[in-house]
């Protein structure tokens, strides 16, 4: 078989042709404007998911903050009184220094009542 040599054989054209008048009618669609920015669907989806999650979180936080029963922060006077009488390491003499006679009487009465 005769060897095939590209340089010796007549040049083979590519075989590619174009539609009739393609080059004569070739027009650039619009070279002045840049391509429209294509927004990736996935990125857009992510943005909306993040936004929805943020709104949900905000609503939940607001609801919980508004309606959840708050622990009492103010100490009622009865608790203070009980603490002073039974738990605090305060002697009768020290107590007498801070209270007037009426208050001491009241205290004695309430102590008697509770005992």
């Amino acid at each position, binding site marked *: 078989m005769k060897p095939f*040599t*590209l340089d010796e054989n007549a*040049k083979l054209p*590519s*075989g*590619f*042709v174009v539609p009739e008048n393609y080059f004569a009618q070739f027009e*650039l669609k619009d*070279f002045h404007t*840049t391509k429209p920015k294509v927004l990736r669907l996935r990125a857009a989806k992510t943005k909306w998911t993040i936004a929805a999650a943020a709104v949900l979180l905000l609503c939940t936080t607001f609801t919980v903050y508004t309606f959840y029963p708050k622990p009492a922060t103010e100490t009622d006077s009865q608790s203070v009184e009980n603490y002073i009488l039974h738990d605090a390491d305060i002697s009768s003499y020290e107590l007498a220094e801070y209270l007037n006679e009426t208050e001491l009487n009241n205290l004695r009465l309430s102590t008697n009542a509770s005992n």
Partner: protein
Amino acid sequence: MNEHEFIQALLDPQTQNVAFQKLVGQYQKPLYFHIRSIVLNHDDADDVLQNTFVKVFQYLKNFKQESKLYTWMYRIATNEALSHLSQKAKKNGRTSLEHQAFVIDNLVADVYFEGDEIQLKLQKAIHELPEKQQLVFKMRYFNELKYEEMSEILGTSVGALKASYHHAVKKIETYMLKN
């Protein structure tokens, strides 16, 4: 008008429309066939040619004129064609080479391919080459670019291009003989 003046005309808003039409008229054909030799299909070549001219227009202000305008445009066309090919292949779940093989297999049915059996075999032989050798062969054999121009476009030395073309020719000849 020399090339520098022509580039200035392309950049000047007063003259750019006329200058750009001239540029398109002058380079559409060689750029089209260069692109077509890479993407193989007419519709794809048309899209890539459009994109190439749009990019040329967009980036002309950044063109440093270290190379000729012609080779710079060829470089853009090459990159656009390769990236188009890769995107299309990816879209179809194939590699670029697999996609090319698919297009070559369907060339017979392509209305814009009028090659005979030996031309089809040549396309198949080219496809067997590594990507860079394919480019070098197509640019030299079909588009008849000078090695110096190819060197500017591909950023490869003239010597390396000559060697690459030589290897490509040998491989193609072997393929043509065996098949």
